[in-house]
């Protein structure tokens, strides 16, 4: 479990994340939503240990994130960023293997190669292994980075949870791969030791796939909990300044429609 307690971070005087508290459970899909400038990306940076919070604590199980080195963190925590640019020619296999860097010194071991093979098969990018990364399309690159990021935390670590943070992972994907990726995430979550916190823009995607939602507004938690608790007309209107119509399809999935 990831426990966030009264975390605050400022840029100058303006608080970007303001006394946020939340618990993110393992084995479920925790999504963070909110309008532009609500502090979603900053929250992900704080949670992943890239930024140090000015106040409050972030605990990985019982370990304070500040007490861990970058290397220790990297063995149990992976982050998928929005926009990764590489300006050098690399093979896809090499990019995925970068995910294993925290785990070996010198040359990659058998476990590292196995992790890469398995994760590439899982994300269906095996047949790209020998291709030049620079020649891939935006969506293909994104899928390669899914594989790389998951390779980093592919194996369970005894006594510790694994943590995966996603900052708008679906930006370059068409609707098919968006659904495919969310489905794969749900599959990965079945193992039970994985804590996933993801920022998504698309409210309907959150409504469909989230197990729990955190709604940020002006750096503060506006609502937190199940879909039904968070995705209310009032909350959405306060945060996004548009009034939604909430529809339910026969299978119970909620849809938000804006007019």
């Amino acid at each position: 479990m990831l426990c966030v307690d009264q975390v605050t971070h400022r840029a100058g005087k303006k608080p970007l994340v303001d006394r946020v508290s939340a618990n993110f459970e393992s084995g479920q899909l925790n999504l963070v939503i909110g309008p532009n400038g609500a502090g979603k990306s900053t929250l992900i940076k704080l949670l992943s240990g890239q930024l140090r919070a000015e106040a409050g604590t972030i605990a990985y199980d019982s370990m304070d994130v500040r007490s861990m080195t970058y290397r220790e963190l990297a063995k149990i925590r992976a982050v998928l960023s929005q926009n990764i640019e590489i300006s050098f020619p690399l093979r896809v296999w090499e990019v995925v293997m970068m995910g294993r860097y925290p785990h070996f010194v010198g040359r990659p071991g058998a476990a590292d190669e196995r992790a890469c093979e398995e994760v590439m098969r899982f994300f269906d990018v095996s047949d790209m292994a020998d291709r030049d990364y620079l020649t891939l399309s935006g969506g293909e690159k994104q899928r390669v980075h899914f594989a790389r990021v998951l390779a980093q935390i592919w194996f369970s670590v005894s006594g510790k949870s694994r943590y995966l943070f996603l900052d708008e992972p679906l930006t370059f994907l068409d609707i098919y791969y968006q659904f495919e990726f969310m489905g794969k995430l749900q599959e990965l979550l079945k193992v039970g030791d994985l804590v996933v916190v993801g920022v998504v823009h698309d409210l309907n995607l959150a409504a469909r796939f989230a197990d729990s939602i955190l709604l940020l507004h002006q750096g503060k938690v506006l609502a937190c909990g199940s879909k039904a608790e968070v995705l209310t007309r009032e909350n959405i209107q306060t945060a996004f300044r548009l009034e939604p119509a909430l529809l339910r399809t026969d299978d119970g999935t909620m849809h938000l429609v804006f007019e």
Partner: protein
Amino acid sequence: MPAKPLASPYAGIIPILTIALVVIAAFSIRFGAVAIDFNEIASAVAKGWSAPDSLDLVERIFVEIRLPRALACIFVGASLAMGGVLMQALFRNPIVEPGLVGTSSGAAFGASLYFVLGAVLKFHAGPWTLPIAACLGGGAATACVFLISETAAVNRESTTGLLLIGIAVNALFLSGVGFLSYIARDPQARSITFWSLGTLSGANWRAVLVLGIATTVGLVIALRYARQLNALMMGEDEALYLGVHVGRLKLAIIAVNVMIVAVATSITGIISFVGLIVPHLLRLMRGSDNRFLLIGSVFLGAILLTLADIVARLVLKPAELPIGIVTSAVGAPVFIMLLRSRRYRF
């Protein structure tokens, strides 16, 4: 179906480069104002080992001039090419070379300062004096470019911004070199002029020793950071997520680059384009793994500079051309070709 590629894309290239280097170095030793054939080389080596005082003129040319020059050339080429790999990885930009980020001009300034003011400052550290002065100058100039590009309004990864900052800092330090050569008395001024052109004619065994130590130490340290530099290709955030202490990495890489490039520059003056083109050629051959690039650059840098040195000695035979003129004349057009190619995004 195995995802893992069957063969490493990097297999086999280092042996080829090694053989090429040995062959080219052997030719380099032969050619010059006096041609020396391989029999004479063999006898010189034999005598040099057993009875160093009994060498004849040709043999002495070989042992005291040709051989140290060939070795110095190898180490300088290796250093400059390695510096290019390190700077390109650090700035995440494939058109950077040590000269562009100020290291070479700064080193030339530091060395010139020592030439003109060394006697006044009473600063002496044996054979290391000049390399130390060059390191200080090179470090100062590189730090300028790096700090300005980190804090400037322009995007750090934008090539244009970096180029402009590099041009400005280079101009500043080269104007310093110009000023020093203007106020210098004649013999000093002459060595400064030689420097700004780049030449291997000052190579001797002492220089080979200093260069050899700096290049080897630099390579060993740089290889330890090769994988972290790979992670840095994706950006500082991604490298950090992969457990890399980015601040420490940058400092270490800049320090290594300044050491190897400044030491090379202190002995030969400014030699451009080797550091730029060698990493490019290696990437075109195989790929961008920095471990491969570092080892490959040692060989290919040495090969290209040795070729340039052969040309420099043959064009105006029996006089010789400063090698920096050769590398710039060949390197600049290649650089323009690279800028036009679509393989890299700038």
